[in-house]
């Protein structure tokens, strides 16, 4: 039996960034490991520059994400104006208004993909000892230190995370019963067997995933070991499998 920390991630608008160079900022269809750990770290109050704390959290948490609804994608055409770096270094404008005044601003146009109405359920399990217990993570998520968001600061969360400790034999059994959700959120998702059943999870060395060797496929994704001040990530293997329709409760 393993104790999992299960919570719901719902945001009206979410973006789970992919490698982005320049103006086209795409989004995966399910949350990234870095985004989820970012939410946990923000709840705990770990600042961006506390690299040791982030690494410890990264080592500690095993992660499984069940995507109930990945959400439809759309593109936000984003115009941003900023003075040049040279002007900023010289004038150090103290307000946004001053920044736009101090020199001719450069305009950057970008297309940012967002996922609307994205709903996932996340299960964390402890892979290694750390300064936090799973209960400490749950308490922090109920009263976080920093604001929480789904990929970008403007992507506010639409539900309390509702962290709960769940005892289960396998990751699959921890995720096959979804927490009770407000009817507004699950509108259009009946019957329950229509709810998304795909689970993306870390390699399960210390626990039983509940999925056999034949059931999963492996996807490479660049969202591991995040460096929070340089926004750099490493690649990892993501195991993806589906909960059988008849196993859903």
């Amino acid at each position, binding site marked *: 039996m393993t104790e999992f920390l299960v919570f719901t991630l719902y945001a009206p608008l979410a973006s789970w960034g992919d490698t982005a160079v320049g103006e086209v900022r795409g989004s995966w269809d399910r949350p990234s490991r870095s985004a989820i750990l970012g939410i946990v770290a923000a709840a705990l109050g770990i600042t961006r520059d506390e690299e040791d704390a982030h690494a410890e959290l990264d080592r500690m948490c095993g992660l499984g994400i069940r995507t109930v609804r990945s959400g439809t994608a759309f593109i936000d055409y984003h115009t941003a104006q900023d003075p040049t770096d040279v002007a900023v270094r010289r004038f150090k404008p*103290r*307000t946004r208004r*001053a920044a736009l*005044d101090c020199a001719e601003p450069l305009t950057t146009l970008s297309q940012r993909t967002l996922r609307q109405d994205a709903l996932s359920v996340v299960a964390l399990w402890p892979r290694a000892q750390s300064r936090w217990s799973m209960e400490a993570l749950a308490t922090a998520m109920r*009263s*976080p230190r*920093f604001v929480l968001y789904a990929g970008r600061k403007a*992507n506010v969360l639409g*539900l309390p995370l509702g962290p709960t400790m769940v005892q289960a034999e396998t990751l699959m059994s921890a995720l096959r019963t979804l927490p*009770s959700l407000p009817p507004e959120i699950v509108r259009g998702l009946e019957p329950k067997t229509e709810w998304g059943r795909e689970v993306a999870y870390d390699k399960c060395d210390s626990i039983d995933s509940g999925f056999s060797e034949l059931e999963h496929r492996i996807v490479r994704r660049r969202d591991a070991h995040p460096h929070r001040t340089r926004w750099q990530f490493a690649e990892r293997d993501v195991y993806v499998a589906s909960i059988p329709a008849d196993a859903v409760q």
Partner: protein
Amino acid sequence: MTTFLQLHLLTAYPASNLNRDDTGRPKTVVFGGKSRLRVSSQSLKRAWRTSSVFEEKLGEHVGKRTQRLGDQILKRLTDGGMDEAKALEITRTIGERFGKLKDAKDKNPTYIKQLAFIAPEEIDAALALADKALGGAELAGEEIDAMLTKFDTAVDIAMFGRMLADAPAFNREAAVQVAHAMTTHGVDVEDDYYVAVDDLQDVSTHDDDVGTSFIGVQEYGAGLFYLYMCIDTNGLLSNLGGNVALAQDGIASLIEAAATVSPKGKQNSYGSRARASYVLIERGTQQPRTLAAAFLKPVSGTDVLTDSIDRLEKFRTSLDAAYGANADASSTMGASPDRTEGSLAQILSFARESLS
């Protein structure tokens, strides 16, 4: 833990195009399977941050509002015996950190072009730099930086953050998050087919030329928008070096701007400047959440404002029942025929109290 202030606003706009995409259409989002009008988070933030409401309300209690800091620096240098030309040069080097300076050839070359808000601590720091220059030291750029930017007296940056790729020491994590605004009901973007007539066209002499000179289409929409904003008060205070009065003023100005300032898109064509008809403010340490899901099923019917307020409040109550109370205290302002209560002043004083 921190104390979060959550703001929920409902603002109605008539035919308007407040925020458009690359094709000139109002921005939209599909929410709950139905297309809604949207005003992006970045558009709202820019409109509020550059508004005179934000600046003026803030200014009353923050240090001095002046163009003439340069005069004080110049006087310090010349009184200390520095030569005029060198003093002017040093004054301008220090002064330009506070705002764009008037031209060197202007009759007041030490003046800042716009009125700038300068806190007493910043004036002291500037004069200390002047003293250093009097002592014969060369003022290096980094030194000036170090003296003047220990913390932000500009609430603007403390609230909305700053990211300088090549000077990460000046980065600030924003204490305020603003969600994209969207209509509570479905909206189909409409087309305004317009023509432009040539005033000098003389039909009597050229009767084969009776048409208009230009035809075009401009898209627009109308609706009741739901806005959500969340302020991390501890984060704001730490960005401001613990200055409670400044944080209170900043939050009050921001809320007032959010309730009264409209984005500037196509304002000359549509004159769509509106004020919030309903404001709900919540305070608590619980994890913040938007109430947008109340509108997943689009509001339909003819009394959109009353129905939207009802939906919002019902959803809030049901979330509280399911997850426990999401806030410790709240206050409401309604400015609609069916819901008249409270006032903006009451909302602002609730916000201020949250920091004392």
